[in-house]
């Protein structure tokens, strides 16, 4: 059989990149302000935290699971880190404890799923409520203001057009990519999403694989929470609202399969930027806010069309 280049397939496969490029071009044409360093910097700054959360979501989705509690973990952790800073704790301790809380939140999700065998959708829907409740309880429903100039830097410094937050996003992306593609743990994880039983037969502790995916997600959410607490200069229960849907959409736009096993870091970054640009571009175009909703839906459809059409039912 001769190999011919299948243009249509190639196009469909790369549709996410094409879409991103088109969106960037449209933005640039519409507004001469688009390619300013401030605007580019904004784009990265605004999407860094949700982008990091989306990377965690990717790890979970690669196992064929889903994590609906990511937004709740983000808001809970903004509250926790802010409370600790407010209480005057040193930054490393405040951050450290917050990250541990994130790990624990992910651990709870993972245990419910692996040990109690509750389906991921419902388990994380329930913990979404729990983590939100914990955040409310700790903050007594208010925003938590802290005073810490050094901590504020994390969310605000930029090197020319590259904000520190974007650098952190990038570094995490590289690490996650390395783990997924080049380490045993990563391969086990991707394999798990492809065929859990096969991975189990290979002598891998599949529960541990699945559990660790949720822990990674929780941990990355806590990083997102720390960054948001710094960016917003406070902890708040409203941060992270709806991030689960943005994160999932980013992952799927990035070409991952929601049944697991397929997907990569590069795609997720593109997906995050596409999701981030949707609002940006429509505001530039001064689209009426009601139409924005409709167009947002349509862009999501275009973005996933091709990028993640349903996995062909394999003949197995």
């Amino acid at each position, binding site marked *: 059989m001769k190999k011919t280049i299948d243009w249509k397939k190639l196009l469909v496969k790369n549709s996410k990149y094409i879409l991103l490029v088109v969106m960037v071009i449209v933005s640039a044409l519409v507004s001469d302000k688009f390619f300013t360093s401030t605007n580019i910097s904004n784009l990265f700054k605004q999407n860094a935290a949700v982008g990091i959360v989306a990377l965690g979501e990717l790890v979970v989705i690669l196992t064929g699971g889903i994590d609906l509690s990511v937004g709740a973990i983000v808001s809970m952790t903004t509250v926790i880190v802010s409370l600790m800073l407010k209480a005057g704790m040193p930054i490393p301790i405040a951050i450290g404890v917050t990250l541990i809380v994130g790990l624990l939140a992910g651990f709870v999700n993972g245990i419910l799923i692996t040990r109690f065998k509750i389906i991921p959708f419902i388990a994380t829907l329930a913990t979404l409520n729990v983590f939100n409740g914990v955040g409310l309880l700790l903050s007594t429903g208010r925003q938590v203001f802290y005073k810490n100039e050094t901590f504020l830097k994390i969310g605000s410094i930029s090197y020319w057009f590259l904000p520190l937050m974007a650098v952190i996003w990038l570094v995490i992306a590289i690490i996650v990519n390395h783990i997924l*593609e*080049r*380490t*045993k743990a*990563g*391969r086990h994880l*991707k*394999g798990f*999403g*492809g*065929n859990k*039983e*096969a*991975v*189990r*037969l*290979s*002598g*891998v*502790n599949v529960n541990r694989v699945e559990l660790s995916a949720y822990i990674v997600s929780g941990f990355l959410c806590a990083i997102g929470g720390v960054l948001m607490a710094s960016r917003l200069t406070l902890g708040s229960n409203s941060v992270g609202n709806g991030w689960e849907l943005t994160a999932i959409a980013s992952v799927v736009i990035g070409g991952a*399969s929601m049944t*697991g*096993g*397929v997907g990569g870091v590069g795609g997720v970054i593109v997906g995050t930027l596409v999701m981030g640009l949707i609002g940006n571009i429509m505001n530039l175009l001064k689209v009426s806010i009601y139409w924005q909703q409709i167009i947002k839906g349509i862009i999501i459809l275009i973005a996933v069309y091709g990028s993640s059409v349903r996995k*062909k*039912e*394999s*003949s*197995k």
Partner: protein
Amino acid sequence: MKSLLSMKGITKRYPGVVALNQVDLELKSGEVLALVGENGAGKSTLIKTLCGVIRKDEGSISIEGQEVQIQGPLDAQKAGIRAVQQHFSLIPTMSVAENLFFSDLPLKKGRILDRKKMNEEAKELLGSLGFGDLDPTQLVSDISVANAQRVEVAKAIRFTPKILILDEPSAVLPENDVETLFEIIRKLKADGVGVIYISHHMDEVFEIADTITVLKDGEKVIDIDDVNSVNQFDLVQYMVGRELKQIYPPVYTDIGETILKVEGLTTSRVKNISFELHEGEVLGFAGLVGSGRTEICRALFGLDKILSGKITLRGKPYLPKCTKDAIQAGLGFVTEDRHYDGLILDDSVERNIGFVGLNKLIRRTVISKKKSREAADRFVGDLKIATPGIEQEVVNLSGGNQQKVVLAKWLFIEPKIILFDEGTRGIDVNAKHEIYQLIHQLVENGHSIIMVSSELPEVMQMSNRIMVMYEGELVSEFAHEGATEEAIMEKASGI
């Protein structure tokens, strides 16, 4: 030869079923033990307890005289046990190479996956096993079932194991690969590996096995220490519990009118296929894997797009656009992969049997529970489907019994023409015998059958005529009398 493996008093219960009852098994190193028995006898269950896939309820396992605790697959691997399971157990989203090395990926600096090395080693491994035509970088989801089975074999023997278990490896392997597999087994044997070989093919058992253990209804019937001390019929008698002299019924020769005429059928996978099928005829299709036999059936059944050609059914043009057209025209299709497109695994035996023929169960627009139960009971009885009840979910049935459920669901609508794609795959001798009888009855009653099979004896013995396929084309036709295995194989290999 010293004792390698000793399983004692293995018991496994499922709700409503005792799958294994105090079963013993002894294996020496350098020995090939054939584990035989009817469908649902407990063969797979027994070896699954050994591989750590499931946990036994009672019993003990010793390897080289040492008792071992096998709690999970890892314990089994550590004890030197490797297996090819009855069901697909590769990761479809990963490459062949990665599947081969999944349990211990080659690492650079002890941490980083070394893809280059992995692919090279995979190529080498596949080559050394005679599977050199497989590309290690291909995704498993893109290769055929047969090739996937070769990967599974390669994966299992990559490290020379102490004990190698093969659960019906030949069910999806083409004939020539079975030979290759036997070569490999003999080599391993010489290295002192103990092999447990499960198969429903008596000829294979007698060709490769040294000893035989027979299971029936979850209990051990007999250990046969020397394979030469018994013949096929004795063995079948142990398995079935009664004498079974003649497996194949005589070919029914009272052929009627032409019912189906195919002229120049071409799809994306087959070219210019022409043949005729008569009433009361069994038309066999032989060929290697990938020769396109399945594709002919799919095209006839409205599943694959017909690019050109003409089909005439009962004298009228027939161009199926969907499966509904095919069914209404009186076709039935027993497909080659019952899990993929044969059964709704989580649904009951009753509902699976009634699924295609729902129209026959309807009374005043509503599905009649009574009719549905009656139909299911009838087929469970007629086909001797071993199940605790018609409410049982088919996923809990043994492979052979699952296959019978697929058959039942098609027989229920009494199709005029039945496409039989590997319809006896994984079925035990007795069940096969019963199905052959059934086919005989069907043709007697004027039904026609297209029988695709990779088991040459089966196609040869059952068919009035045998069509041979090679790379998507019909290359030869044999009459029942004139066919020999050698001649068919020659044509099928394109010689």
